């Protein structure tokens, strides 16, 4: 973005102004996440930087909130984490299976009523969450699934499948169907063709859709608030309760762990995206 030497002064000023705006916006986006790190190591109970922390005094830092998160007697984080992972994993598996099958069907040029069906399948992504929450709650209450893990998993499958459908359909749009025909002409049955040929090629799309579904479930709080009982508490519910009642530094310790988890997911998703782009590049 270096400016050519003949640039007029006013454009030069404008250019630096533009860069300053961009810097500010990037800072605005990323800086709030970094406030949490140092404060989670605070030795005191307050959510502000103490004098000791400003002077980098080692005594002002401690791991007490992390200890509280893991060993604290009143803390429900252990149960919440267990529930969150169980629910998210099953919801992801369900979303991947249902979503991938549907995407395969939708990508077929023989599919009837494609537009209408696609709109129905991705509607949970479009409808405001609060409305989805109310509707799903009515269903689960009638089906006797409110306040059960099964109910929450099903609810999260509803919310997660649109992402899988979208990413897998996108991957399939660059998919060369002659390879499956080649497999069929060589005597492979459809299931075998899918497992050996199609799946490995669309796998990046499937996994990144799965990551979306996982994060959606792991981070979901609106629908869970309607559905969960005391036994099904999840990390987002605990954070929600904690933020509403009293902002304790333990929440910051949990938040730090969640940021690390999201960094991990981000890196995986990026690597997959690049791999998928490479594979699609070869196909073209």
């Amino acid at each position, binding site marked *: 973005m270096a400016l050519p030497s003949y640039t007029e002064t006013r*454009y030069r000023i404008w250019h630096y102004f*533009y860069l300053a705006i*961009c810097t500010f*916006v*990037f800072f605005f*986006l*990323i800086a*709030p*996440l970094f*406030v949490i790190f140092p404060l989670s190591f605070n030795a005191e109970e307050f*959510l*502000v*930087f103490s004098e000791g922390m400003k002077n980098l005094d080692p005594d002002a830092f401690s791991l007490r909130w992390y200890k509280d998160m893991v060993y604290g007697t009143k803390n429900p984080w252990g149960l919440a984490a267990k529930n969150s992972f169980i629910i998210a994993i099953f919801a992801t598996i369900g979303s991947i299976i*249902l979503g991938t*099958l549907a995407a395969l*069907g*939708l990508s*077929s040029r*023989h*599919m*009837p009523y494609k537009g209408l*069906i696609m709109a*129905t*399948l991705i*509607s*949970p992504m*479009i*409808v*405001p*969450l*609060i*409305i989805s*929450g*109310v*509707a799903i709650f*009515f*269903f689960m209450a009638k089906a006797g699934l409110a306040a059960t893990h099964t109910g929450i998993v*099903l609810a999260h*499958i509803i919310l997660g*499948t649109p992402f899988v459908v*979208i990413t897998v359909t996108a991957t399939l749009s660059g998919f060369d169907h002659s390879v499956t025909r080649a497999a069929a002409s060589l005597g492979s049955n459809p299931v075998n063709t899918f497992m050996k040929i199609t799946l490995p090629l669309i796998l990046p799309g499937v996994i990144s859709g799965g990551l979306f579904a996982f*994060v959606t479930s*792991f*981070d979901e*709080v*609106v629908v869970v*608030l309607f559905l969960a009982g005391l036994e099904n508490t999840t990390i*987002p519910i605990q*954070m*929600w309760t904690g*933020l*509403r009642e009293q*902002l304790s530094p333990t929440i*910051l310790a949990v*938040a730090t762990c969640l*940021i690390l988890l*999201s960094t991990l*997911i*981000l890196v995986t*998703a990026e690597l997959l995206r690049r791999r998928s782009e490479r594979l699609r590049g070869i196909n073209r």
Partner: protein
Amino acid sequence: MSSETKQILTTDGIPLEVSLKKAEKKNKIKAFLLVAPLLLFLVITYIFPIGDMFMRSVDDRMVTNMLPKTFKAMEKWENLDELPPEEVYRGFYEDYKLLAENQQHGKLGQRLNKEKNGFNTITKKLFRQIKRKKIDESASLKEQINKLHKRWRDVEYWQAIKRTAPPYTASKYLKGMDMYFAADGSIAQVDEDRRIHRILWLRTLEIAFFVTLFCFFMGYPIAHLLATLPMKYSNLLMICVLLPFWTSLLVRTASWMILLQQQGIVNDFFVMIGLVADDNRPEMMYNKVGTYVAMTQILLPFMVLPLYSVMKTISPSLMRAGKSLGGTPFVAFWKVYFPLTIPGIGAGCLLVFILAIGYYITPALVGGASGTLISNQIAFHMKTTLDWSFASAMGLMLLTGVLVIYWIYNKLVGVDNIKLG
């Protein structure tokens, strides 16, 4: 003529046309069967329940089922400005007695009280008389009931009962817009000082609109920068957009709560640069400011990603061509570059606006009383007042709004032009 042309046959001896049709049909069924599990699942667990919401929002069969004889008798009540005839009183008395025997009379009293204030008292009075067996069923019930309380002699109360007769009602929708059915059945506005819902709708629209605007003005420059920088720098900067995108909503809200509190870093900074006095730190949380700031940061990635994916496809040579043809950089940008990014702007604004209009968590945490939105009200009625039919009605009004926005967007830009990531 067709009989003259020789039909092409497959090796099985079937005409090719028939065989092809059969194969196409088979493929159609195959494709549909792949979609069927998810479609069925969603229809049962999601689409039907939204229909169920609609039924709940208009359902008013409770009173209809409770007072069958009353409503039957009311068909003969002709002059609605006068008290109903004896049959209506008798029908109501018999219905109410049955309800009292089944311990259901309390529900009726409460429901009628919502229709007309003061009903609960007079139905309770009737209940006590029935329990003490003080009512002579052989004499005129109209006289006896009228004697119980002056409100029974007020025709407005009987009109209120009549209004509850239809099994379906739009009253919840009117309530959502701060209106109600007046005594004569016309639609009236609630008193000025009690119009809370209209304020909430307007505030929701206002916040969604401004958040979209802020996101656009902040997102456009950085999307442009990301799309024009060389790959190795833009990948690094992309992390600044993607990390918040993948981070839990609650984590980001928590960090804003820390930053914006009165002793927080933002206020510290303002004091440091001398913008505000140390003992006069402004309240930036639990009001609209907090909602705006936090929601803008949280929704910004949804603006940047579609913009970026559109800008990425615009060739830089177009801008150079514009400039070489004599346009200043500003003209080249406005006439060449900007129009090409409209699909991205549309997608980003649509996404942010629709997400913002249904927002619930962040406003509830940082919004305080003046930053709450319509979603908070829906959640309040679902969880606290348990008025599920009203919550359903407001939810469906919100949904209708969202669908209208989609429709307008589709007319203007076309949903096919949306690009995600």
